[in-house]
């Protein structure tokens, strides 16, 4: 499909270079400005989607237990896989990765591995037998230029939010590994020491004009490109300059200086996005806790939890005649029960009520618990008093 590929016109080529002589880029940016960066996370741990201007890349991290390499028996492994989807660019062909795909994977891999950004030794479970192998899949969704930088950010964001299952070693010979279910034991994050950020420069006009974060059109017209991977401490993790025009060493040093400033900027953006995501996830988890607490305390009746409205509305009628003491009419408890957290909490009280009263039907009791302002529980279970008072006001 050769004729489907986009080609720059002579006019564009000349204009992009001409405009750069006056330090103007065709999308209105200054030469050393990054495009707008947006990081979004998926539902599962370890999936991130990055938008850098028009470029979109998705990163996805998975891990499994494997046998380690013979020469490194107590280290885990990290592997990067890239997929250049044909929907990202008409020039991408499905099937085997092309040269650009392999180069991208290699640059990101080198940045993470050589700089020891991800701690490999903490991924060892049983030396010589079982280690965690972490796999990062990068899918290019839209090619708007500068895939390396965007893919790197996606890989880092995904690694930061990835959680691997906790596993314990036991058994007779100390070799049995049990992987715990994430519901039972919280999965653990990877140990990441620092974030190596890739910053790409494009060269124009005999190597003396350079811009940061080239767009698709600028990449088609540029003379050469260089990617520097730097972390916020200023450590250079890797440099990649494959072919293209020659540049002076002073220009390279200047680029490294600019890159370290930009790397600090992007690192703080990644960290703030990751923190926001993890706190939001933790907050969502906290709301679930009352259910677990109620379940543990519940002695006799388990059925009441599942049939919220139906069962209780039926049974609440009968004991009304039997236990007329300090019980509010059943109408109010029905409304109260619709509030999730509160009804769950009130379930923890039934056992106390059933002890104090005859305990015929616990359901209606706990429903009325939530409404009656003062009863025996206030004296017996002071720790629930605070929560009770909140929904005790009817």
């Amino acid at each position, binding site marked *: 499909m050769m*004729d489907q590929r986009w*080609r*720059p*016109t*002579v*006019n*564009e*080529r*000349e*204009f992009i270079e*001409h*405009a750069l002589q*006056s330090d*103007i880029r*065709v*999308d*209105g940016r200054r030469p050393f400005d990054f495009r707008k960066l947006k990081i979004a996370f998926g539902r599962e741990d370890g999936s991130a989607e990055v938008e850098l201007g028009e470029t979109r890349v998705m990163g996805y991290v998975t891990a499994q237990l494997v046998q380690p390499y013979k020469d490194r028996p107590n280290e885990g492994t990290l592997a990067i896989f890239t997929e250049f989807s044909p929907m990202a660019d008409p020039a991408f062909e499905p099937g085997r990765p092309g040269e650009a795909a392999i180069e991208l994977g290699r640059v990101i891999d080198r940045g993470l591995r050589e700089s020891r950004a991800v701690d490999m030794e903490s991924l060892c479970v049983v030396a010589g037998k079982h280690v965690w192998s972490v796999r990062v899949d990068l899918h290019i969704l839209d090619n708007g230029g500068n895939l390396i930088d965007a893919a790197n950010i996606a890989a880092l964001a995904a690694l930061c939010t990835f959680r691997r299952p906790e596993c314990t070693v036991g058994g007779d010979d100390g070799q049995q590994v049990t992987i715990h279910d994430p519901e039972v034991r919280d999965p653990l994050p990877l140990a990441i020491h620092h974030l190596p950020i890739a910053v790409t420069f494009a060269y124009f006009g005999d190597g003396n004009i350079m811009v940061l974060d080239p767009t698709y059109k600028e990449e088609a017209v540029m003379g050469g490109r260089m990617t520097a991977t730097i972390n916020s401490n200023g450590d250079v993790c890797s440099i990649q300059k494959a072919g293209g025009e020659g540049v002076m060493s002073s220009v390279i040093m200047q680029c490294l200086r600019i890159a370290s400033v930009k790397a600090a900027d992007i690192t703080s953006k990644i960290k703030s996005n990751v923190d926001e995501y993890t706190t939001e996830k933790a907050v969502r988890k906290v709301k679930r806790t009352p259910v677990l607490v109620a379940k543990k305390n519940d002695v006799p009746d388990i059925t009441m939890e599942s049939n919220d409205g139906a069962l209780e509305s039926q049974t609440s009628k009968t004991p009304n005649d039997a236990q007329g003491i300090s019980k509010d009419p059943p109408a109010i408890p029905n409304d109260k029960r619709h509030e999730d957290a509160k009804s769950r909490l009130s379930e923890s009280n039934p056992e106390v009520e059933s002890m104090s009263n005859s305990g015929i039907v616990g359901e209606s009791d706990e429903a009325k618990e939530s409404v009656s302002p003062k009863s025996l529980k206030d004296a017996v279970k002071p720790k629930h008093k605070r929560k009770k008072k909140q929904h005790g006001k009817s």
Partner: protein
Amino acid sequence: MESKKPLRSAFVDDYVVPGDVILDLADMTNQTIKLGAGLRQDCDTIQVTSAGRLRLSKPNKYWVENSQKRYIPSVEDTVLGIVVDTKPDNFLVDIKGPSVAFLPVLSFEGGTRRNIPKFEIGTLIYARVVKANSIMNPELSCMDAIGKAAEFGQLKNGYTFETSTGLARMLLSSPTCPLLEALGKKLSFEIAVGLNGRVWVNAPSPSNIILVSEAIKQSESFNRIQQRSMVEKLLAKLA
């Protein structure tokens, strides 16, 4: 007894989808109707083949107007093409359509075998579509119907970018669209718009060119009032 009154389709200026029947020819006698893009004759009925708005141009030309990134060539459209190859008889020109278009080397004013223009790959050409059907490659010409050059030919300098076909049509609408009018009041520039969704802008200074290009690209979904306010904001920032 022939009915002299032309039967007008009830769907003019409405949105239609493929499969809609817009006109039944059984009721009409001795009248000719011209069908443009997106319409097809099926025995006695005229059916729609692409989704969009049905338009009528007096006295009897119907076509369906829609906006998309790809361009379907249609005769008499003026387009901006990029030369991708040269052959002995034709230039192969990409006009954002399903297939590459042919521009005969002699379709220039006063063109003979001795003065064939030399276009390198990547040259931008403003041309007119002469032949277009779904079976063959479309054919272009750099002359108007009489044989004069009339602004067709190579466009030098400036900057090109791509838009949707709907935006290109909006830029070409008459009276002049508010976007270009507002920009023209403050800046001086020249512009060529191809109905295939390609635009060429030229101005004395690069910053003006970029300003006009960005303004046009942003106004993809704006109506008249929004366009005008967007341009005013942009120019106010400059001043």
